[in-house]
Structure formats: C-alpha cells, structure tokens
C-alpha cells in the first residue's frame, strides 16, 4: 500500500554567500509499509528538507522518491504532513480546523461534523472543540493538528519535530498516543526529531543523519517490546548505541566519530 523508496535523493540550496550546498546528498532509503521510522539528527542536518520532499512540497535536484512505484511529484491527501509550527488556522476553532480538512476533501454537512468530532475525540480534545488555537496549550494545539491530519485517513503521516516545543509530561503522553494511533490505523509514519530518547522510544527504526554531510550515517532497527520501558536495560543499551553513533559517548574505548563505522551499519528493511 505505501512503501516509500528514496534513491539518490539530493537537494541543493544556495548558501548566503552564493555557493551551493547539498543539504541532502544521495540519500537511499526504503521505508516499509506500516513502519514507524524516526529520522534523527541535529538541527540543520536536513530533516525538514527531506520531509518536504516526501510530502511533495519540494522536488529533489537529483534522485527520485516513489511511493508504491509512483513518483512523488506533488502533495497528496494520502500523505499528511504535520508541520513543526502545527500550521493551525488561528481564525478557526479546533473543530473548524478539522472541518477545513474535510471541506477540502469535499465532505460536508452532518457527515463532516460527525467525522470531525470523532477525530477530536480520538486525540482527546472533544471538550475543547470550540476553542481557538490561541486559547489552547501547546499540547492541545499539537492534538488539533493531529486530528486534522487523521480525519482524512492518510496512509502516511509525516511529522516534523511535533513534540519539540512541549514539556516532558505532555510529550511522553503524546508519544504513546501517536504510537497507538499509528498501530491501530496501520499508518506508515516518518517522525522527524532531534531528541535521541524520543527516537529510540518511538521508532521501529531510527535513521540518523549527521550535521553537515547530508547523508544517513546509521540506520538502526529497534526491536523492543511495546510499549517499551524507558528505564529498562534493553532500551538503555540501544540509547547508548545511538549516542555512540553521534560520538556523544566519552569512555575512551567506544567513541567512534559520526559516520566512522560504516562497516557496522545495519540496514534495517533490507535482506
């Protein structure tokens, strides 16, 4: 249904001084149907750029992106993006924002109202349906954005640092909910984050990008029992592995430089 294949994806942006920089350079990646993939890397490494390419907001300068063998050339309601700033319309209530999505899909009237309320209920926001975004907390806004995306029943959900601005308690709760909804609906999720713990906790797979290379430095399959225990030893071992990949471990023996251990890169999703 929704296997995504990137091959040789390159995106070049001009630097302020006029020179050109490959923000993404020859990215190869196969995302399986129903996979929950976390794209992890420091700020500025090109995560949003990659997500915009997946969404069809932008086209690669070289390489191709296909979904079920069809070239991604423009946005498609079956692939819903939740932008970093949520992109809620401030002049519409929570319900109004969700209704807009249905209106865009040509769903109106009682059916639209029913589906919008169901989507808000799914994210636990029924009580705030009439509130406007400025009256909602950051976590609630994120939920509205989620409801707006889910109401059109996408096959792929593309989330850009969705919980970056939230406090830890809200973040943990939303992580669990997103994971649950994605499993229930068998959605393919690409979840961009710069938070190592979040990536390890959420992802079936963590794809890591380094700061300047525009490449994937590590692709790690995560096989933890769900819901996973944030304090368990299996979780902590994987977490440590990710820290190591970004050369954030300083114990003298196991501190490879980022990208320096290509021999040990495990490619999840490949035989």
């Amino acid at each position, binding site marked *: 249904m929704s296997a995504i294949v990137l091959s040789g994806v390159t995106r070049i942006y001009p630097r302020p001084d006029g020179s050109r920089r490959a923000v993404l350079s020859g990215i190869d990646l196969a995302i399986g149907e129903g996979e929950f993939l976390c794209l992890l890397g420091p700020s500025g490494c090109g995560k949003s750029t990659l997500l915009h390419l997946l969404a069809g907001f932008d086209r690669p300068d070289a390489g191709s992106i296909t979904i079920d063998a069809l070239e991604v050339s423009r946005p498609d309601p079956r692939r819903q993006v939740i932008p970093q700033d949520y992109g809620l319309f401030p002049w519409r209530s929570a319900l109004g924002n969700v209704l807009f999505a249905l209106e*865009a899909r040509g769903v109106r009237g009682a059916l639209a109202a029913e589906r919008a309320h169901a989507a808000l209920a799914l994210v636990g926001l029924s009580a705030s349906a009439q509130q406007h975004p400025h009256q909602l907390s950051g976590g609630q806004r994120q939920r509205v954005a989620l409801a707006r995306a889910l109401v059109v029943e996408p096959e792929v959900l593309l989330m850009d640092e969705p919980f970056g601005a939230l406090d830890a308690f809200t973040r943990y709760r939303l992580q669990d909910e997103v994971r649950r909804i994605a499993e229930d609906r068998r959605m393919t999720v690409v979840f961009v984050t710069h938070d190592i713990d979040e990536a390890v906790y959420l992802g079936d797979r963590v794809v890591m990008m380094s700061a300047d290379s525009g490449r994937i430095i590590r692709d790690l399959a995560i096989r933890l029992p769900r819901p996973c225990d944030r304090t368990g030893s299996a979780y902590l071992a994987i977490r440590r592995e990710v820290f190591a990949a970004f050369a954030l471990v300083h114990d003298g023996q196991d501190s490879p430089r980022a990208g320096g251990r290509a021999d040990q890169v495990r490619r999840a999703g490949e035989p």
Partner: protein
Amino acid sequence: MAMSMRRVLLASTGVVAFIAGWWLLSLRYDAEQLPGPGAVAEALREMAANGKLWRNSGISLLRFAGGYALAVMLALPLGLLLGWSRRSLVAADPLIQLLRPISPIAWFPLAVLWFGIGNAPAIFIITLAAFFPVLLATVSAVRSVPVSYLRIAANLGASRLLTARAVVLPAAFPTIVVGLRIALGTAWIHLVAGEMLGAQSGLGFLIVDSRNFLRTDLIIAGMLVIGILGLVLDRLIGMGERRLRAAWGQA
C-alpha cells in the same frame, strides 16, 4: 476601560497647551483674522442651533461612506487577484505605480467635467483617495500569507477557490484591515478638499462659504468638526480592528 486620572491629564496636555497658545495669540489679532476659542465655541453653538452643523456633517458622512465603500468594493477583489497571481501583478504594477502619485485633487477638473457639480465628484475623489491604500495593503497582505497555511491547504487537496476563500482571505484579513484604516484617514482628508472645490453642501463647502462671508469663526468651527469626525471615525475602525485581531487570535 478604566483610565487613570494621570493618564487623562497627560493625554490632554497637547490640546490644553494648543488652546492656551491659540487664546494668547488671538488677543493680539482682531476677530476676523484669528477669533479666540470662545468665539469659535460660540460659532459652533450657532451652527448647531440653526442646523447647519448637522446637515452638512450628515451630507459629508454620507458621501464619505459611499465613496469609501465603493473604493473597498473595487480595491479588495482586485488586490486579492493581484496578490494571488504573480503574473497579474507583473502586468498591473507599472500602471498602478503610474496612477498612484497623481493626487486625487488633480482629478478634480475631470471629475466636474464628467459628473457635474454635486455629490458625484466628491464621491469620485474619495473613492480615488481610498482605492490605492486598500489595493496595496490587500496585495501585500495576500503575498505575505504564511506559506505553511498554503501547504496545509495543498496537502489536503483544497481547490483554488476554497484556498482563496477559506485560507488566503482570512489569513490576509488582519493586514488588510490596517490598510482599510489608513485609507479611511486619507479618504477623509480628501473628502473636504472635494467639497471645497465643487459641492454646494457638506463640511468642505461650509468652510468655503464661511470664507465668502468673512466668518473666520465659522471657518475654524468647521475645521474643528472635520477634525473631530476624523478622530471618531479612526477610533471606530481602530476598535473594529482590535476586535478582529482578538477573534483572529492575535494580540
């Protein structure tokens, strides 16, 4: 809204100083050149009593409302189009920049030639004066609609019409309202000019007519009324603007 006494005092400083200075100056000149505040207040009372004040203000306000509404009805859709379509803006921009510097007053001889004397030329001038501020504000408001809103609409597969109506227009509206407010002030200024040049009624006419009878006190009274009405109009649209911002979720 509770305003502290100190604030009221501070806010009236300019007005009080102005009246005091005016009064001092008026002592040195004769009343035909510069009547004092007392004489002007008396003139205002006279105009209010004989109905001139209400009649001429009413006529001016009606003309103003007509011209302003016409300008908004023309400039708003055109501005939406020009802001939305890059090509149409490229096509129209040189013409706009050519016409814009021509003062509405310069159109007056033509206006009288085309529409005769009366309401029409004054309304024409007001429309012209309000048209460009509304047009330019609308164009720039539409062009600065956040790209993230447009992406949301595109991602959901919204039609161009839905995007224009339900995304671009409401997103641009708070900025457009700023343009509406600027246009209001500009148009009000030109209303009086229009009426001074070719009308037989209205506040502008009142001033010209008073000059013909050397009633300096009435001239200044008329000017005061123009100023006060302009202030009231600005405050009204300012209130509307704040309400709108609140409804739009802006501070």
